């Protein structure tokens, strides 16, 4: 396509815009040279071309410059400090919560060993290892554990041990149930001697524990003795049961002593100061003590459940 008088304006405009190729520019130059009357028109179009005004500049370019914000480490450090502070506060709070006090923690601690000792006294049903009592030393529960040289132990004889231990563990709560359930106690041959031992133990401790609960336990023990004496003559394995009874009496003595301590300290808690100061904050101990009591009752209830199951199993006449 060549330039002519009909399309020259488009070529001129493209010439001003610099959109023409070198050949087209030469063609336009030649056309203008041939048509001088159109040269002024090209000149006027060229005057519409703006020249960049370099005097207009953006002052204070520094405002536009950017720098990568590398404060993440500072932020991390801040979060780290907050985390450490929170962890420290949490540890202090947990230590305050879990810290054993003289009054509220002992009942839980004391109940636990009793439970363990009761469990230790019960031989595993699956294992046929006989229980041997090698020693009658006080406070040695390990002696009650089965050994190779132990005397064969009849499964019937473990029932009175467990029954009696349970009765002494919770003398107040089980008082009525023990009296009502005389048959389960009476049929147990070994209970007689155990009751004797325990009664003696409790009597020895009476001066140290003027407690109603303990008195009731002693009364139970006496009643138990009366009930069990009627059936004591039918005991065929008296020799083995004597050894067991000695061990049980030791255990009972220990349990009753701890039980005495438990009740006595619960009474002491009522006289304590109920206020506890953490910094400037005053807290009421009774509220937390209530939580502890609930937890202890839950634990106690859980520990009683297997005991009750065992009692039911022991009431089975097949064991006799």
């Amino acid at each position, binding site marked *: 396509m060549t330039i002519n008088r009909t399309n020259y304006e*488009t070529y001129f405009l493209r010439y001003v*815009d610099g959109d023409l190729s070198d050949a087209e520019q030469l063609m336009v130059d030649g056309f203008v040279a041939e048509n001088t009357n159109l040269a002024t028109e090209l000149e006027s179009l060229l005057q*519409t071309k703006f020249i960049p*005004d*370099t005097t*207009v*500049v953006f002052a204070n*370019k520094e405002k536009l*410059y950017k720098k990568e914000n590398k404060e993440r480490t500072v932020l991390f450090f801040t979060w780290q400090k907050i985390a450490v502070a929170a962890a420290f506060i949490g540890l202090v709070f947990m230590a305050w919560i879990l810290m054993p006090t003289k009054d509220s923690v002992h009942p839980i601690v004391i109940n636990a060993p009793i439970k363990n000792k009761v469990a230790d006294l019960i031989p595993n049903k699956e294992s046929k290892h006989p229980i041997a009592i090698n020693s009658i030393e006080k406070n040695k529960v390990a002696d009650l554990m089965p050994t190779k040289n132990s005397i064969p132990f009849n499964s019937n004889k473990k029932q009175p041990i467990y029954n009696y231990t349970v009765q002494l563990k919770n003398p107040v709560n089980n008082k009525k149930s023990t009296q009502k359930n005389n048959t389960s106690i009476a049929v147990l041959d070994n209970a007689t001697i155990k009751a004797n031992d325990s009664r003696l133990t409790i009597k020895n401790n009476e001066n140290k524990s003027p407690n109603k609960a303990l008195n009731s336990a002693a009364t139970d023990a006496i009643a138990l003795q009366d009930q069990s004496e009627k059936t004591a003559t039918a005991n065929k394995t008296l020799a083995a049961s004597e050894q067991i009874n000695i061990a049980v009496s030791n255990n009972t003595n220990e349990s009753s002593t701890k039980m005495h301590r438990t009740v006595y300290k619960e009474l002491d808690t009522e006289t304590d100061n109920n206020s506890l100061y953490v910094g400037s904050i005053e807290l009421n101990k009774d509220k937390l003590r209530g939580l502890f009591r609930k937890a202890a009752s839950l634990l106690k209830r859980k520990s009683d459940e297997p005991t009750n199951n065992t009692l039911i199993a022991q009431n089975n006449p097949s064991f006799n």
Partner: protein
Amino acid sequence: MTEFEYNQCVTLYADNVFRFIMKNIGHEADARDIVQSAFEKMWLNKQHVITEKSKSYLFTVAYHQMIDHIRKTKKTKIVSSFEQDERVVYQTNNQLKETLMQALNQLNETQKSLVLLKDYEGYNYQEIGEIMNLSESQVKVYLHRARLQLRNYLVSKENIS
């Protein structure tokens, strides 16, 4: 785009963008705000901006922000002369240049931008179309009409004077 490349863009193109916006709207403070916004946007999207097309990106963002600004302020008043400001250095203008600036202000916003992008920055039709969201043929037609309008203004001024 890295931090270094961004700062290079500031050094290389801040004046160009400012000049383009300033000649379009004729208000320095608004022009500065638009330029700052354009660079701020480029900084925020620097990970997605290709360095080779950073100038185009800047002009595109600045142009659209300028259009938004014009629509918001409905500033259709033709500014016949630029206000003097200590932060803007003005060259000694001759008569033709003043007349040409007056002629530029007779154009509409699109024509003004087309002429300035073409003459100031030297973009071709396609690049101008990408910046202004126009087709290449539209750019060509609108630009030629603007040229003819400028020429007519200059010729008429010459005739009057």
